[in-house]
């Protein structure tokens, strides 16, 4: 991207497209070009640990899977037109040396910057020896070593001698939390977790005897389920965790040895050393110089560290209206948080561009389905050479001739590339000319190409479900390259099995369900309100159901964010906007009493006092929040000097003389968190306590402030608070779970005080602190949402928080469509992250609400109620609540399918003892016919 001109709603973006010298429409990614290319260069994707060719795929899963020529290294470009090997051997004629750079001007309404991060380069840091000691590598290099597609094919080897290491060390905070020149003071936030993961996976590769040790300052596993992972790594996998500061790495032993000695200061402050075979540097994240310059050119303000500057209240908006930022460009963060931000950014764009929605949409039309589909099967079989990918191993003409003799087959062809534009046309013509009513393609995998061929036959007037694949490339030619004859036999068998199923295929009509365009949001806190505004601003009628008598939730306690923004003003504004919005209706003192239905068609009864209100809506967002634990330890509830969370700052706010008279205050962290009965981190307590400590210390420098902690988890840019607190003289004392602090009442000079006994973590001696007030950072606990979860048929995790569909990739969805989650109900998190998740939930919800009707994959279960005996095994076995028993007059109970909830897995069908349930497109008779077709030939071969 070169530039962005214009303003929100009307930008012109100039994009420079470099030539790849490969025609994307023609390239089939067979890889012959790279095989033939004589020029080897360092493979950046494998961190330089392996080589690639000058024509290459960046990585095996690249999308689109198309090769590109690296002109900086290609012989043709270096030696004026020589070589051309790729052009000569490409079976698809895809090489095009005439391509030139193109400049595109794109008109858009908004822009999202998701440019990611650069990994910190430790080369300039001589104490770690990176670059001079071959077995000191970065975490990115180690990732590649562990990968099956990496330089050593997933075998755990060290670079110097390719021997499997017996001892591996990870050093944390390389380039992060480090004030040296060229390093960063912020915490990169992701390295603790990835180092643990690498250590655990290394053990899986290298066996039990592999010794792994992680050298760290604070273990920051603050995400959902992360502390459990940390616990398991230590207790089950046996990863060693060494709390330390590393001084340097030296070559160990004699000159022949490539082993490494780590010199470090342990937790008792003593110098120690240990020898390892391999050292992995857990390098942090940073924003490249190039990106900083681009941001400057675009007029995007950056924070002091080079990340996009955003407000806690508008977390994906950059300083330039209409341009949004998400992912690591807006601060160090992990995958779930990046994915949430990306959805949040799309919601911000959708709100901005709501008026012009669908103005550029084009509707595709299809010919009506020909009634010949109901006649006797007339099957056409198309066998693909895929260049030489299939044709080089399998005898494709022989397979074609074999297919011609199979029952019901009336047309066969073999094609160089069945997926190419012209062959698609040939298939459509063949369908018409030969009155084909079933099509089988023997080529690659249905996972990538089934949709394409279904579309082709649909354009030819056939129902898309009258198509069947035979995967003779990925699961035949490619995996039996040295046995062409047997691969050909297998291809014939596969084609026969597919033709047999094809004869039994039946047309399936699309499942279109009416879709309602209203949203229901349960919970009127900051998250619920933010989601509501994003939806209402797009024109969707939104209901907020709040159990309390007023909106706001816990956000009212957030006086200031950690960045110093005014939380109260934000909340007042938010509540005002919600109340004034004509598309939002707020129901206070209200509870959900009944709920039924599914995506696009929910029916909910909301009870307010004695009145009931029925609401019909298309989606649900759960934003029910969580609450702080009321502890039963440290004299909480017994001594009024012991408080929790915001109670102390609220007391000082109300009665300023209290802080004036106080000599010392203490905070105890992890009260009820990270303990056996609640083994998770509440994530924002460290930041909250530090904010208060800094505030108190700033107001009254002579006040003694102690923070008694286990690990300080000020992840990301919040680390600056930790630094500032130490500069201000806040005293940090670490305790461990087996030696928790003890709090007692005491009287000093006639004044009531608290006495805290805790062991000093460096000196190892007991300390006795006398403080006026103690503030407890207690666990954030779920509200007990079992009833709601059951009503909605969505799961809770072991800790009682709502469990999303996928921890990383679907962080606001449930496996049940049309229901989304955000805020503390999902997991403890700071306000800005709740708002991100709320916007993400709104984006996901809007993608449903905008549709005229909900289109459900129609390959669902069908119940034959005549056969059903109402045993209910299907209902018990269905993981999605898509089959249930209904009362049929005079017959008792019978199973009924709810197509909108069905995922087509077929567990119900397998469980049904009466065979009363069958799956569309995967019917018993279709699968059994394939089984028999696959087996009979083998039997015949045995008898020969």
């Amino acid at each position: 991207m070169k530039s962005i001109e214009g303003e929100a709603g009307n930008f012109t973006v100039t994009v420079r497209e470099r030539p790849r010298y490969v025609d994307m429409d023609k390239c089939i990614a067979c890889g012959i070009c790279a095989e033939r290319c004589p020029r080897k260069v360092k493979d950046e994707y494998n961190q330089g640990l392996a080589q690639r060719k000058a024509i290459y795929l960046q990585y095996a899963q690249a999308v689109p899977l198309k090769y590109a020529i690296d002109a900086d290294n290609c012989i043709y470009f270096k030696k004026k037109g020589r070589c051309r090997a790729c052009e000569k051997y490409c079976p698809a004629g895809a090489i095009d040396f005439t391509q030139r750079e193109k400049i595109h001007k794109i008109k858009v309404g908004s822009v999202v910057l998701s440019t990611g991060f650069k990994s910190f380069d430790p080369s300039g840091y001589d104490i770690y020896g990176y670059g001079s000691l071959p077995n000191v590598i970065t975490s990115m290099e180690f990732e590649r070593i562990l990968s099956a597609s990496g330089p050593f094919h997933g075998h755990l080897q060290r670079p110097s001698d390719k021997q499997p290491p017996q001892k591996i060390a990870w050093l944390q905070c390389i380039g992060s939390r480090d004030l040296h020149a060229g390093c960063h003071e912020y915490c990169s936030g992701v390295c603790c977790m990835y180092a643990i993961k690498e250590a655990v996976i290394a053990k899986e590769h290298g066996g039990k005897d592999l010794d792994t040790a992680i050298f760290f300052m604070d273990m920051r596993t603050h995400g959902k389920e992360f502390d459990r992972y940390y616990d398991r790594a230590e207790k089950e996998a046996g990863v060693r965790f060494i709390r330390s500061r590393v001084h340097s790495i030296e070559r160990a032993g004699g000159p022949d040895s490539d082993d490494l000695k780590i010199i470090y200061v342990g937790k008792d402050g003593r110098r120690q050393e240990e020898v390892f075979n391999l050292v992995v540097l857990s390098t942090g994240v940073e924003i490249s110089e190039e990106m900083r310059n681009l941001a400057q050119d675009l007029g995007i303000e950056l924070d002091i560290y080079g990340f996009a500057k955003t407000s806690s209240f508008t977390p994906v908006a950059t300083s330039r209206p209409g341009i949004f930022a998400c992912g690591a460009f807006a601060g160090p963060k992990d995958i779930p948080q990046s994915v949430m931000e990306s959805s949040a950014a799309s919601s911000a764009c959708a709100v901005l561009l709501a008026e012009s929605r669908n103005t550029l949409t084009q509707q595709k039309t299809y010919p009506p389905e020909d009634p010949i589909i109901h006649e006797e099967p007339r099957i056409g079989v198309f066998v693909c050479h895929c260049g030489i990918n299939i044709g080089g191993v399998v005898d494709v003409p022989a397979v074609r001739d074999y297919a011609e003799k199979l029952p019901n087959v009336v047309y066969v062809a073999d094609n160089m590339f069945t997926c190419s534009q012209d062959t698609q046309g040939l298939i459509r013509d063949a369908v018409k000319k030969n009155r084909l009513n079933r099509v089988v393609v023997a080529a690659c995998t249905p996972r990538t190409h089934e949709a394409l061929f279904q579309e082709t036959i649909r354009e030819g007037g056939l129902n898309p479900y009258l198509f069947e694949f035979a995967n003779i490339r990925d699961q035949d030619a490619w995996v039996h390259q040295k046995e062409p004859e047997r691969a050909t036999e297998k291809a014939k068998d596969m084609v026969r099995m597919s033709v047999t199923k094809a004869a039994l295929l039946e047309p399936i009509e699309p499942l279109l369900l009416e879709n309602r365009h209203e949203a229901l949001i349960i919970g009127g806190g900051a998250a619920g309100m933010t989601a509501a505004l994003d939806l209402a601003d797009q024109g969707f009628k939104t209901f907020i159901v709040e159990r309390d008598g007023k909106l706001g939730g816990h956000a009212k306690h957030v006086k200031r964010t950690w960045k110093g923004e005014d939380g109260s003003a934000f909340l007042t504004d938010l509540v005002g906007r919600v109340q004034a919005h004509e598309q939002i209706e707020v129901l206070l003192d209200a509870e959900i009493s009944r709920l039924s239905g599914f995506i696009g068609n929910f029916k909910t009864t909301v009870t307010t006092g004695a009145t009931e209100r029925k609401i019909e809506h298309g989606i649900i967002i759960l934003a029910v929040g969580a609450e702080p634990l009321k502890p039963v330890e440290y004299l909480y509830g017994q001594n009024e000097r012991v408080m929790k969370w915001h109670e102390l700052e609220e007391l000082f706010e109300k009665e300023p003389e209290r802080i004036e008279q106080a000599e010392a205050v203490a905070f105890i962290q992890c009260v009820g968190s990270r303990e056996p009965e609640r083994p998770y981190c509440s994530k924002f307590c460290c930041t909250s306590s530090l904010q208060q400590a800094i505030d108190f210390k700033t107001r009254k420098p002579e006040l003694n402030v102690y923070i008694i902690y286990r690990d300080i988890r000020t992840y990301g840019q919040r680390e600056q608070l930790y630094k500032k607190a130490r500069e201000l003289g806040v005293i940090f004392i670490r305790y461990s779970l087996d030696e928790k602090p003890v709090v007692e009442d005491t009287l000093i000079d006639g004044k009531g005080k608290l006495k805290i006994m805790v062991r000093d973590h460096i000196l190892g001696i007991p300390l006795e602190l006398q403080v006026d007030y103690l503030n407890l950072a207690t666990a954030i606990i779920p509200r007990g949402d079992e009833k709601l979860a059951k009503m909605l048929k969505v799961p809770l995790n072991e800790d009682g928080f709502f469990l999303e569909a996928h921890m990383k990739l679907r962080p606001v969805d449930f496996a049940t469509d049309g229901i989304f989650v955000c805020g503390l109900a999902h997991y403890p998190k700071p306000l800005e992250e709740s708002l991100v998740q709320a916007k993400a939930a709104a984006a996901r919800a809007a993608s449903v609400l905008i549709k005229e009707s909900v289109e459900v994959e129609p390959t669902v279960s069908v119940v034959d109620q005549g056969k059903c005996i109402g045993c209910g095994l299907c209902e018990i076995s269905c993981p999605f609540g898509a089959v249930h028993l209904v009362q049929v007059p005079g017959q008792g109970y019978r199973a009924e399918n709810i197509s909108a909830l069905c995922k087509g897995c077929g567990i119900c069908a397998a469980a049904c003892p009466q065979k009363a349930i069958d799956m569309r497109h995967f019917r018993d008779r279709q699968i059994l016919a394939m089984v028999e077709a696959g087996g009979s030939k083998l039997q015949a071969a045995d008898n020969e």
Partner: protein
Amino acid sequence: METNKSFEPKILAFLCNWCAYAGADLAGVSRLQYPPTIRSIRVMCSGRVDPVYITDGLKSGFDSVFVSG
């Protein structure tokens, strides 16, 4: 029972579309080589596999049945 050292079992595989089938495709992309004696059937979940499919597979001449998902 006759022992045949060159015995190669003929295997019927039921592969879940979302994992095992994708895994078999990845084996192809990675050019991992294995004996061509396996015949696979794609299902949308290994939970779809009715015990009858397994017994039918054995009756149809397969030596073993592999359910992966």
